[in-house]
């Protein structure tokens, strides 16, 4: 029998574990790869059966995503030869570019609303969590439970009251309204997460700062905040992912000015037939900001997820 150790897995165990991780990675990455690939296919390749794994890459999907197009006659094309690479792509289908699509606008709405509500959730959450962690708040436990209880039902369960409230307050289809809504939903998560992180910071740090001549607020900004950076970063990622991906409320409460990307992308299907490359291109671009944000903060996120799990 070979050597057996409790802490060190055997080569066989390592191999099995590695294979399982690889399998899981493939399962999760495959749809992403498929979406990204579809974004670079031509309309014909996108719906080809059997599906094409090898294909001639095309930017058709991206051009369609960012533009609106109209049909034109051969005489028009003879008089106005295409000048740019994207005009050429469009012309090959007998179309011409009529103007920009609304995708850019919708995408900016997503950025404003997603990052705005994330900032607000984390900012308010940090202040509330600090107060709950450090001060004697009357009915502290009940308040914390109340805050948690706002997350106990799916937010969409209150969609109709919120719809009515937003309508009478004039918040429907406004950036402020959506930021407010996502902040309200995220705040309970952010208060709870951040309170856990701040609880772990020994209050001696602040007391030392108080004695060293700082005010309570300076002690908070100069000592507590740098210490809580990990928690703040991981909380921000969770809040952003929720606000960024939220679909149901966005469909219900926005239609024009403040419409975010998630409800916009499916509408591409209806406009000019089932333009899967354009949908896939939209989804790919939509993935990027959260991906970049998460990669930027990944060191904090990894530490953040396990933070507090082990008492040192």
């Amino acid at each position: 029998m070979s050597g057996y150790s409790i802490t060190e897995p055997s080569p066989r165990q390592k191999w099995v574990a590695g294979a399982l991780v690889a399998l899981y990675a493939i399962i999760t990455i495959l749809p992403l790869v498929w979406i990204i690939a579809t974004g670079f296919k031509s309309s014909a390749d996108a719906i080809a059966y059997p599906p094409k794994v090898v294909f001639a890459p095309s930017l058709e999907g991206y051009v369609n995503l960012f533009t609106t197009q109209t049909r034109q006659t051969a005489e028009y094309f003879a008089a106005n030869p295409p000048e740019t690479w994207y005009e050429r792509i469009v012309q090959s289908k007998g179309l011409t570019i009529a103007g920009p699509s609304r995708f850019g606008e919708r995408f900016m709405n997503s950025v404003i609303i997603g990052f705005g509500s994330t900032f607000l959730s984390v900012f308010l959450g940090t202040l509330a969590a600090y107060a709950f962690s450090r001060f004697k708040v009357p009915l502290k436990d009940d308040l914390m439970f109340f805050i948690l209880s706002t997350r106990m039902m799916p937010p969409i369960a209150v969609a109709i009251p919120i719809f009515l409230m937003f309508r009478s307050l004039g918040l429907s289809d406004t950036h402020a309204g959506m930021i407010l809504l996502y902040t309200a939903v995220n705040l309970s998560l952010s208060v709870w997460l951040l309170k856990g992180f701040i609880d772990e910071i020994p209050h001696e740090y602040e007391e030392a700062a108080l004695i060293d001549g700082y005010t309570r607020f300076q002690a908070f900004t100069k000592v507590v905040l740098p210490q809580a950076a990990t928690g703040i970063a991981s909380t921000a990622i969770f809040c952003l992912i929720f606000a960024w991906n939220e679909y149901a409320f966005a469909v219900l409460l926005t239609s024009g000015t403040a419409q975010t990307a998630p409800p916009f992308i499916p509408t591409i299907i209806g406009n000019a037939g089932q333009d899967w490359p354009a949908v896939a291109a939209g989804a790919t671009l939509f993935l990027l900001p959260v991906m970049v944000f998460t990669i930027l903060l990944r060191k904090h996120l990894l530490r953040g997820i396990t933070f507090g799990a082990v008492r040192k």
Partner: protein
Amino acid sequence: MAQIRIDSLRKDFGAFTAVQSSSFTIEDGEFFMLLGPSGCGKTTTLRMMAGLEMPSAGQIYIDGEEVGRKPASQRDIAFVFQMFALYPHMNVRKNISYPLISQGMGRKAARAKVEEVSRILGIEDILDRPVGGLSGGDRQRVALGRAIVREPKAFFMDEPLGALDAEFREHMAEELRALHDRMGATTVYVTHDQLEAMQMGDKIVVMNHGVVEQFGVPQEIYDWPATLFVAKFIGSPPMNFLSFEGRVAPGDALVTLGSVEMAIPQLREGFAGEMVLGVRPEHVRLDDGSDYRAVVRAVEYLGTTQIITLEAEHGEVKARISSRDPVRVDQTTGLAFNERTLTLFDAGTGRALRSAVNEEVLRHG
């Protein structure tokens, strides 16, 4: 440099009273120990003095000025925490200069001051290191550096050696005391370690259950404990207690334990009822001529001395005697006590009865 006076200080946390009516005075330049078991209120007392905790009642005077309601930053004191509380996101230099920057000292002056302090503490070579990787002793020195750099009126230290391992603790204790003597600043030091208190302190306050049990110089507290608690808490092994019932009158210099009469310091007050006779182990002699008999139960060899555990009629007695004296387990012997060092306690309240030798101590304790 400061004199600190505590007057009837009290702290309640809801229904729990952490400190009830403490009063004592710390003279300028003293190394002052707040000693007691955990939960006795010593740390709460220190935190009130530092301004980290608001007193429920009573006054704190630093150099005659009442500071009980003043924020910590305006009391001009420095605090050394048990876990050091070095700012983890700053390097050593920044940690030490932090209090100077907060006072608005210029970068250049602060830098010079930090270098001076680091020379005193012997940490010049680690100034630019992050605090995370430092050893316990170096962290302790950085924490001290942050405290002394400002030249405050007083240093408050909450079990500053508690986080260090035993070997290093003794070394740091000497360093701390030397530093104090060099700076001459008033130091208030909280500890639960009676040896540390005796070793380092000019004066000691012994606290228990939020009450000041005794206040005095280490020798007085060791020789003339004011209460049974102090007698038990100080000394290792602690004082021996022989319980008996009897009656004494002022002027008596004898007590009767069972059938044996024992000489004690002349009493200044009378008492009738349950009493306890206290004697330190080093004041117990094994004397075959004595009528007070006891059986040897155990012998602990400690090098130059040995601790003999004996069973006597009124309780267990430990004697610290020279290890050259031969003692066997189960041997019956007589016990004699050094009469000048005996203390008689009221068993009910734990209070020491006044006698010719301890009345001076008890008056100001």
